[in-house]
């Protein structure tokens, strides 16, 4: 769907030096969207069309409020596209394509562990909300640079969900010092012991992860070891965002060992972790 989103909130998220922004858009997308999907935003300086940047920017849905017809996008200013996006003012309309992609699938019952690296936490918030609505137990593992980052990037909102949080920072200023995967590993081995197993009698756990590729790969390896199903949300540079240009492929491998390409925009961005070929070359 090509639609306009009215900017109702556009504000700094947390400390200014984190360059994070919260953008709330009013429009029809909220009615049909689900967690893990994204929109392709035209980043342009107002009404005068420009080719600079040329392409739309994919941004995940961090919150979906069908009742208020609002979606929330959280993003970091990292380049030209987001820098221009950051200038949109309240009352302006942004051109959006979406909701795009397939999103996460929720288990019927059991526990959902979210594993986030850095701003990979953003799409997991919408997922946490749906999971809680559905009565699932949710736990967040989240690693970031330092305390300032975690607080800026939405920790208070996560705390408000009243779910267990396992936080790590690289410098130890909040939570444990180290990587989020270490906490995940700790928790997994607490539950399942130190060896690989297919113990179906232990709690029904599913993992959903988003963050740097290397981190998601490590998360997937851990999960595979413990036979825990894992969904990963991939990122790739996009052209069309609807599956038409083949710009955004990732490589999957099936049980028979056959490699295939899938489109992150249309078949993803969420995939089963076990199927992803992480080094990407084929």
């Amino acid at each position, binding site marked *: 769907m090509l639609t306009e989103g009215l900017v109702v909130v556009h504000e700094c998220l947390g400390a200014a030096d984190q360059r994070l922004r919260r953008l709330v858009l009013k429009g029809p997308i909220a009615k049909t969207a689900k967690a893990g999907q994204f929109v392709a935003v035209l980043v342009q300086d107002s009404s005068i069309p420009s080719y600079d940047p*040329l392409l739309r920017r994919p941004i995940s849905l961090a919150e979906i409020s069908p009742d208020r017809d609002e979606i929330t996008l959280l993003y970091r200013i990292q380049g030209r596209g987001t820098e221009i996006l950051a200038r949109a003012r309240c009352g302006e309309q942004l051109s959006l394509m979406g909701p795009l992609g397939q999103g996460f699938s929720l288990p019927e019952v059991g526990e959902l562990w979210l594993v986030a690296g850095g701003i990979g936490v953003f799409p997991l918030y919408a997922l946490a909300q749906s999971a809680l609505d559905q009565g699932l137990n949710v736990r967040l593992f989240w690693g970031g640079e330092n305390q300032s980052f975690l607080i800026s990037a939405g920790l208070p909102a996560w705390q408000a969900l009243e779910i267990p949080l396992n936080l790590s920072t690289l410098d130890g200023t909040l939570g444990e010092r180290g990587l989020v995967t270490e906490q995940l590993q700790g928790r997994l081995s607490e539950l399942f012991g130190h060896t690989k197993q297919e113990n179906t009698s232990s709690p029904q756990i599913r993992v959903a992860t988003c963050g740097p590729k290397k981190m998601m790969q490590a998360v997937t390896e851990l999960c595979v070891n413990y036979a825990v199903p894992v969904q990963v949300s991939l990122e790739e*540079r996009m052209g069309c965002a609807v599956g038409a240009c083949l*710009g955004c492929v990732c490589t999957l491998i099936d049980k028979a060992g056959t490699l295939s390409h899938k489109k992150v925009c249309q078949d993803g961005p969420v995939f089963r972790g076990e199927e992803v070929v992480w080094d990407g070359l084929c």
Partner: protein
Amino acid sequence: MDCVDLTTVLAGITLRNPVVTCSGTYGFGEEYADYCPLEALGGITLKGITPLPRLGNSVPRLAETPAGLLNSVGLENPGLEDFLVSYLPKVRKMPTAVIANISGFSLEDYVQMARALQVDSGLAALEVNISCPNVKHGGMHFGTDPHSAEEVIAAVKAVTNLPTIAKLSPNVTDIVEMARAAQRGGADALSLINTLLGMRIDIEQQRPLLANTFGGLSGPAIRPVAVRMVWQVAEAVDLPIIGMGGITTWQDAVEFLLAGATAISIGTGNFVNPQAPLEIIQGIKGYCEKHGLTSVRNLVGLAHKG
């Protein structure tokens, strides 16, 4: 009467209007269905196919440049067989003219595909891509050597009853020579232009940004080169031209028509605005009305007469 006849005739096919979409940017015709109804379009061109399936190049495959886009998809496609089985049946039902695009690494490749694609397949025409710059062997050769170009078009013509469109590469010294070669080979029309070969370097990583090093440059950046080539070929060769390269607005489209294109095609522009084709059709109509033209065909090549 301000009613404008938008139909146009190209290589014997009548198009509802002169607005087509480019190969490789419009998938197999279904991906943009939510954004742009197929029945509104003059036609669509399918993703390029090859005899065997191809996984294409590694990612990253895309990089933005000033007013442009580099791509190195590398002709990823399901291959001829799967195309015939899984895609062609849908093509028959599409409410617009569908052009297949074929690429190959040898004369035999092209012949094999052309033989399998005939009028009864439901296709409107065959676009022979002799210009894809992403494939290390083959593609470039047909696209830059006039003799090979002529040969491959003639070979295709010999085995298919579909109208044949030769899609030319801009990465040549003399586009007119290539167009003449395609004409000698029997092409019914020409598509101008494919992408310009380019690259970007990631200065932090100190290596090429695209996994494949080089990519094809498309988008508004290349429009002046595309318009020039359409102009030159229109002056020299008596074949209808589908003009493309950087069209995002109706003004751009009119520029190509005035330069001598019979139809125009939208590629990268769809990514920016998936309703660009609709807006461009309306814009061309409005332009004709404003200039008192009863048929869009009257626009073609008009700027040469001034």
